[in-house]
């Protein structure tokens, strides 16, 4: 016979997976709009707000499950981690909105070199996807992979920051290109950090221990 708590856990699982997929779509859309020069700020804002409300729903529901059923062990760890993951996904939405807003503020970026952003975007999108899948499959090993990917993301950001600082005196220096790229790289770097935290949460659910990299 299923426990009443299991019905609640299933609902919270569906909620956070919906959040995961929505946040993944939003970040992809934001990055596509940067590459193609399309303005999607309003749509992405709407999605980001939806994620924020979903995060509140997850927190409220998780609190209700704790109050009603007083879960312990893996059930309690799962509920605690669901709240962390929901926060992570809502941050993905917010950073997607920040990326979309860069173009609104800075203007068209057709002539900018977007290769570094594209490079980091690929890894970050993979990290978001992996974090969602790790939750879906409760894969405790995803945490290690995510941290390795995060190292490469951090490295791209640091290299680009140094590059941007050395380009300012060049004749064809275009501040809009560097400022926009730096901002977006920073948002992607933050997204990858949150993807790692989601991996940590999954590791904690499965093992009861903090991730070894944490």
């Amino acid at each position, binding site marked *: 016979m299923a*426990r009443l708590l299991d019905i609640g856990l299933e609902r919270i699982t569906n909620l956070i997976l919906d959040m995961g997929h929505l946040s993944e779509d939003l970040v992809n859309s934001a990055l596509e709009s940067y590459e193609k020069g399309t303005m999607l700020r309003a749509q992405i804002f709407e999605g980001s707000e939806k994620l924020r409300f979903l995060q509140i729903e997850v927190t409220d529901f998780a609190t209700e499950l704790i109050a009603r059923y007083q879960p*312990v*062990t*893996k059930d309690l760890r799962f509920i605690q981690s669901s709240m962390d993951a929901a926060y992570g996904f809502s941050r993905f939405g917010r950073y997607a909105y920040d990326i979309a807003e860069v173009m609104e503020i800075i203007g068209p970026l057709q002539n900018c070199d977007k290769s570094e952003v594209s490079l980091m975007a690929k890894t970050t999108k993979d990290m978001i996807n992996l974090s969602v899948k790790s939750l879906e499959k409760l894969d405790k090993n995803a945490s290690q992979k995510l941290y390795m990917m995060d190292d490469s993301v951090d490295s791209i950001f640091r290299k680009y920051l140094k590059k941007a600082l050395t380009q300012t005196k060049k004749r064809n220096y275009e501040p809009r290109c560097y400022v926009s790229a730096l901002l977006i790289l920073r948002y992607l770097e933050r997204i990858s950090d949150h993807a790692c935290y989601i991996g940590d949460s999954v590791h904690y659910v499965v093992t009861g221990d903090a991730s070894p990299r944490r």
Partner: protein
Amino acid sequence: MAIEESLERKETTVESVKYKVSIENVDAWYGTKRAIKDVNLKVKEKTVTAFIGPSGCGKTTLIRCLNRMHEMTPGARADGRIIVDGINIYDKSIDPVIIRRRIGMVFQKPNPFPTMSIFENVAAGLRLNGVNNKTIIREIVEESLKNAALWDEVKNELHNPGMSLSGGQQQRLCIARALAMQPEVLLMDEPTSSLDPIGSSKIEELVRTLKDSVTIIIVTHNMQQAARVSDFTAFMYLGDMIEYGATNQIFMKPEKELTERYISGKFG
């Protein structure tokens, strides 16, 4: 008086005693039925230890072994050693009556002496043990009722019958009665199972307070109660001690799958 003298002598070196109670290879039987199977457990001094497990797992039998009440059931016996402050309470030279004086017990249902007043309920044990000085008795009764968090509620009606109190108050009266004997260990067998939530929470608060002076072992069916009040938790199943550890560890990350299944409600 051998055990009492020995226990008192030990008190002078109690700082060096790490564990108050050591249960070593204890088996308990009801006729041919083995209710407790080779249980080993060490209880730290001035802590609260909860015994949890499904009905019939042996937790009440084990707690009754700790003050030699188990053997009062016809056909019941226990083997192994239970060491309290370095003394094996099952040693042939030990008088079980003295053990029960030093290891107090509170039962599922409050059981005040029905014909006695509140005052006399607490004083009864003292009188039975030869304390006749009225001033001393009055002081101990007041102190015990205060320690049982009942004094403020009954101080003006000490001569009313014990049975006139509410269920929760009666249970605290029974705790006061046990405390009057100044026990070193207090055994509590589902002390809140017949109480309403307010009465239960008062007992739980009391348990947390009392552990500053007494080692408490509590049997409970309510796992949330075990999680709230205990420092250590022992999970028993079919007479076996399955897992024993810090309550936080047992409720967040038990080592045994059976423990996890039981406390998560996945049994059966």
